């Protein structure tokens, strides 16, 4: 590795570099930890990248690109695929012309997420082949391989990564030759692309036929390889993703079958591998997806303790998993919890909601921190956009006196992501006590690292863009009371405004508009061309 070609990249950066080397025509997605840096880096190194309002729209745009015989990359965090799932299942039926690779960045252990769902289940459920890299080199290589598989079988491919692959920096050697980019064209293929039932039935059969071919490919592909075991070892390990790296250290002498193409699984290859060892164990983070598939196929593997479904693995936990010993999480001292920044405009809002004893239906973003002391002014937080629907449900069900205390609180980026249909619901099925929605508009997607969105007036790369204003949208939808107020510059005015809306019994949207203090610092830096050390 002393050829001077190696580079130190995070998994996210490696995926971006591969997208560039794959001649990707468009990268699109919605910011979400730990996936955000992929598109940011792709743009930085010269790729065409854009933020979509949400993951579903991003995937739909990417599908269009791939139907036009160009290559598309679409990125999101694990929960983003829930939003994009509708299109995901059916694009598996239609297939693609140009390569379509969807990156799902999962967050086992929930460093910055509301759940730790294991999106490998999506590959199985939708019938979409899945690659799982274990470090940045594989993140780079597998992205290119994903495009090759996607075009060879004309099928979308899921590249499933996790926090420690996305945000770890490891060495990468780039391919000498990039893939040659296909020329975009349109060809009518109504039977293959228009999924009315009579077309979808044969499309489903075509999908299963492709998957059978890919399963045969998986049996012999170098994406699934065995390591050389130490002498006289009884232990065989079947593993994938980051768990492979932990296993290498936890059991250096064990025989190992490392799965890179983990759907469809190379069942016969695994069966032959497992038969050679006295004891065979699956080391995987999250759900026992591989383990359960092998057990169902009659392959003898020792089931792991249920405890390992929770949180991340590391070398120490893998040692416990392999030894079959009871695992109890070591009691480590708690760190300092995150908090709303000093000077954050959300602080005034949550102080007020706390002092007025509101029932706060919350949402996903920095402002979720309103749940922690000293505010403790958030009562629900489920998924992107849920603040509005859940708030309406509370208003419908609660006795009048309590219903009147319900407020939905949602951020600007989250509102554009999935708050719009909530407002439509509010106007269509208004609670008898009315409702109040607070849009905390700090002019950025703050929690994920200050990304642009359709309301900021800037594109992913900072260039000027059309600006979508939430007040225009909600007025057009027929909300009776719409106001905009700065909770930092005019505290009293903001409080008066909110009180009047709460007492009105009408449908009201109040936009608390004040820029994120971190975003102001970033803008200043960008304009002076300086960066902080």
């Amino acid at each position, binding site marked *: *590795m*002393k050829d001077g070609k*190696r580079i*130190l990249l995070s998994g996210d950066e490696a995926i971006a570099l591969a997208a560039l080397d794959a001649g990707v025509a468009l990268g699109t997605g919605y910011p979400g*930890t*730990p996936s*955000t*840096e992929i598109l940011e880096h792709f743009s930085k190194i010269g790729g065409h990248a854009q933020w979509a309002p949400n993951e579903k729209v991003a995937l739909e745009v990417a599908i269009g690109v791939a139907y036009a015989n160009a290559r598309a990359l679409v990125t999101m965090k694990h929960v983003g695929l829930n939003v994009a799932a509708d299109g995901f299942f059916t694009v598996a039926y239609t297939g693609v012309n140009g390569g379509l690779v969807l990156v799902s960045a999962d967050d086992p252990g929930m*460093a*910055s*997420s509301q759940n730790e769902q294991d999106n490998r289940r999506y590959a199985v459920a939708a019938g979409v082949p899945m690659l799982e890299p274990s*470090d940045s080199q594989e993140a780079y290589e597998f992205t290119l391989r994903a495009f090759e598989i996607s075009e060879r079988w004309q099928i979308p491919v899921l590249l499933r990564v996790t*926090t*420690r692959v996305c*945000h*770890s*920096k*490891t*060495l990468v050697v780039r391919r000498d030759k990039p893939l040659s980019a296909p020329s975009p064209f349109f060809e009518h293929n109504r039977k293959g692309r228009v999924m009315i039932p009579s077309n979808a039935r044969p499309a489903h059969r075509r999908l299963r036929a492709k998957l059978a071919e890919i399963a045969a490919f998986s049996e012999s592909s170098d994406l699934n390889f065995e390591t050389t075991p130490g002498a006289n070892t009884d232990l065989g390990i079947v593993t994938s993703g*980051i768990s492979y*790296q*932990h296993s*290498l*250290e936890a059991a250096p002498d064990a025989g190992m079958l490392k799965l890179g193409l983990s759907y469809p699984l190379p069942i016969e290859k695994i069966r032959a591998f497992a038969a050679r060892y006295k004891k065979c164990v699956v080391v995987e983070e999250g759900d026992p997806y591989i383990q359960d598939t092998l057990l169902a196929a009659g392959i003898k593997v020792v089931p792991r303790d249920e405890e390992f479904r929770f949180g991340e693995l*590391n*070398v*120490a936990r893998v040692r416990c998993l392999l030894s079959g010993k009871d695992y109890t999480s*070591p009691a*480590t*001292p*708690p*760190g*300092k*919890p*995150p*908090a*709303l*920044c000093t000077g954050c405009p959300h602080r005034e809002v949550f102080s007020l909601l706390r002092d007025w004893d509101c029932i706060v239906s919350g949402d996903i973003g*920095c402002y*979720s*921190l309103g749940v922690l002391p000293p505010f403790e002014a958030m009562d629900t937080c489920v998924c992107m956009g849920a603040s509005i629907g859940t708030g309406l449900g509370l208003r419908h069900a609660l006795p009048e006196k309590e219903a009147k205390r319900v407020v939905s609180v949602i951020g600007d980026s989250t509102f554009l992501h999935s708050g719009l249909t909530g407002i439509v619901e509010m106007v269509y099925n208004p609670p008898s006590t009315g409702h109040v929605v607070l849009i905390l508009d700090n002019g950025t997607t703050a*929690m*994920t*690292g200050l990304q642009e969105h359709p309301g900021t007036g800037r594109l992913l790369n900072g260039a000027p863009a059309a600006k979508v204003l939430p007040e225009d949208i909600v007025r057009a939808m027929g909300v009776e009371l719409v106001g905009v107020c700065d909770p930092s510059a005019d505290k009293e005015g903001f409080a008066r405004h909110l009180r009047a809306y709460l007492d009105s019994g009408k449908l009201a949207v109040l936009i608390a508009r004040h820029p994120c203090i971190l975003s102001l610092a970033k803008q200043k830096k960008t304009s002076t061309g*300086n*960066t*902080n*050390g």
Partner: protein
Amino acid sequence: MAKTINVCIAGLGGQGVLTASDLVAEIAFRSELDVKKSEVHGMSQRGGSVNSDVRFGERVASPMISEGEADFLVVLDETQIEVNRHRLKPDGILIVPSSIPEGKLANPKSLNVALLGVLSKHLEFPESLWMAVLREFLPAKILAVNEESFRLGRL
């Protein structure tokens, strides 16, 4: 340097933990070693506890340092020492803000680089390499104060 060296850097969001671990990873990278660096983004960066692991040697597999296996624990905030002490090997070396003589640091924001100066005394990399990496990675405006802080730590 056949053995893998584990360096854990800890502090609070905004203190430059990730910048410090980037610098250490870059030093190891330029020394032709295998290197892996791990960190977590997102909610944890809003003023809460942040830590980042750097591992280097002939061949590194896991990017994360297991409990009690850090050779060096560099802590940027006094309140985070006890929170992270369990990560250190029994004979590991703890580097903390008080490792820098009181009142000598020109700018408190360069504490991260000053503590790297302390760390650098225990590692086999030449001072010239550290200085070259600082020059390349830090913005010109804050370079001088950071160079001074690094030397203070290395004293």
